[in-house]
């Protein structure tokens, strides 16, 4: 299962304050732990919204608004993508996030297993056969 950990923006990320060496180190350690566990699949940090733009489509030509945008906590500052076996495991990783005073949002990403669960008749037959073998209903 793939999950996206969304790191919400705050006044510091929006002001473009770069992380301290210590913050950088703990984040690197965290990422390395996930890498070594075979869990980390992608991740990026984002520039402040002052360097972004919004595009809205409302019957007609797209309207473009340049950043910055208000309400920092509705914005995102980065994301980390992890591949884990369960929702619980995703949560356990998220709980180890090394920053304080931060808001994270965790969302599941559509992936192969959301499509591949179609049980074929052959598979069902084999499952039933297996149950017979085990003497289970």
């Amino acid at each position, binding site marked *: 299962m793939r999950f996206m950990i969304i790191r919400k923006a705050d006044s510091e990320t929006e002001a473009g304050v770069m992380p301290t060496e210590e913050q950088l180190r703990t984040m690197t350690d965290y990422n390395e732990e996930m890498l070594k566990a075979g869990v980390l699949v992608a991740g990026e940090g984002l520039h402040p919204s002052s360097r972004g733009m919004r595009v809205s489509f409302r019957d007609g030509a797209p309207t473009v608004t340049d950043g910055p945008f208000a309400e920092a906590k509705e914005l995102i500052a980065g994301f980390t993508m992890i591949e884990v076996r*369960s929702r*619980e495991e995703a949560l*356990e990783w998220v709980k180890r996030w090394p920053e304080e005073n931060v808001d994270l949002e965790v969302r599941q990403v559509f992936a192969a297993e959301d*499509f*591949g669960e179609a049980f*074929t008749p*052959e598979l069902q037959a084999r499952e039933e056969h297996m149950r017979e073998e085990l003497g289970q209903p």
Partner: protein
Amino acid sequence: MTTTAAVEAVWRMESAKVIAGVARLVRDVGLAEELAHDALVAALEQWPSAGVPVNPGAWLTTVAKRRAVDHLRRQQVLAAKLAEIGPEQAADDRKGVQVDFDAAFEHDIDDDVLRLIFTACHPVLSPPARAALTLRLVAGLTTDEIARAFLVPSTTVGQRIVRAKRTLTEARVPFELPPRGQLGDRVASVLEVIYLIFNEGYAATAGDDWVRPELCADALRLGRVLAELLPDQAEVHGLVALMEIQTSRLRARVDEAGRPVLLMDQNRSGWDRLLIQRGLRALRRAEDLGGTLGPYTLQASIAACHATASTPEQTDWQRMAALYDALSQVAPSPVVELNRAVAVSFAFGPEAGLEIVDALDDEPALRRYHLLPSVRADLLARLDRNGEARAELQRAAGLTDNERERALLLARTAALSSERPGAQ
């Protein structure tokens, strides 16, 4: 979310490290797993009321470690073990001073996990035994989960694991990294197991046509772990690249009714771009390490060739033919030859392909393999030799066990019959 579910999740994340750390003390993976399991039982008893500790991994390690030390004391071998760790600590322990087991334990957990992987995949064990043991000890799966994944009864898996542990003990397999001279072979033995697990999820066995994505994900995860532990081994990255790229197609590989979709007919927009990118990056890592490309890296290169073509027509068949040529040198097999024939036929014309296929005629391994006449039929049809092509298709239909495949082959025979022989 229940505490039990949280405990299980933590177990899967931490069990390999806990088992590996304990195994370094007790030098027996079977015993190490039992002691680590005691820690899990303690967690299941205590966490629901006391709450999940802030650092659950450290908690499990501490408890398992304590059990290991108790065990060693009982075995009266602690002093000897400690002497291996350090003479001062052994002396301290005799004096009754609290020994700093943390220091001994924190040693190098990466190496311990690597030792665990090499032990679970030791060549004294059969590949299926290695696969079961690896999923259990390294991937943290339960016996039931492994049984479900392999579609065999739980008792079978349980027995397989017990026997495997006993074999390791009886063969006195040391909990060590392989000696330098054996590293290549031992890595190959690990890669074989990971790819076996992957294929169990990915490649349908004869007559079956489904995928089990979770098993693919477990194998991929094991591969990714190994790539970080053995960054200098090109074939590890080659296998990871191969699995990343093959997994990228899982979604497109089966249609809504669960029927398999051949690579050339797949909707390429359904391929997982993130996994393709990861696969290409792993492939570069393998190539950058230099040396002759091994079989996994070559297969990954072939998979990459498909992955980077945005339409089937854009496939670089000349490169594909060269890659199959290289693969048939390092890992010769009749099936590789047959694939090479297809690549060559698209790169240099059906006649060149047919020449390779004809040379496979007496190959005993392919005598009952329906794809041989099926490929030949394709090539003959492309050469307008429709009569011969029909005969080959009928031969192929007679050889396959898969109903859907047979129907497909007979439909192709009928289509050829309706064409005028020799028609352009």
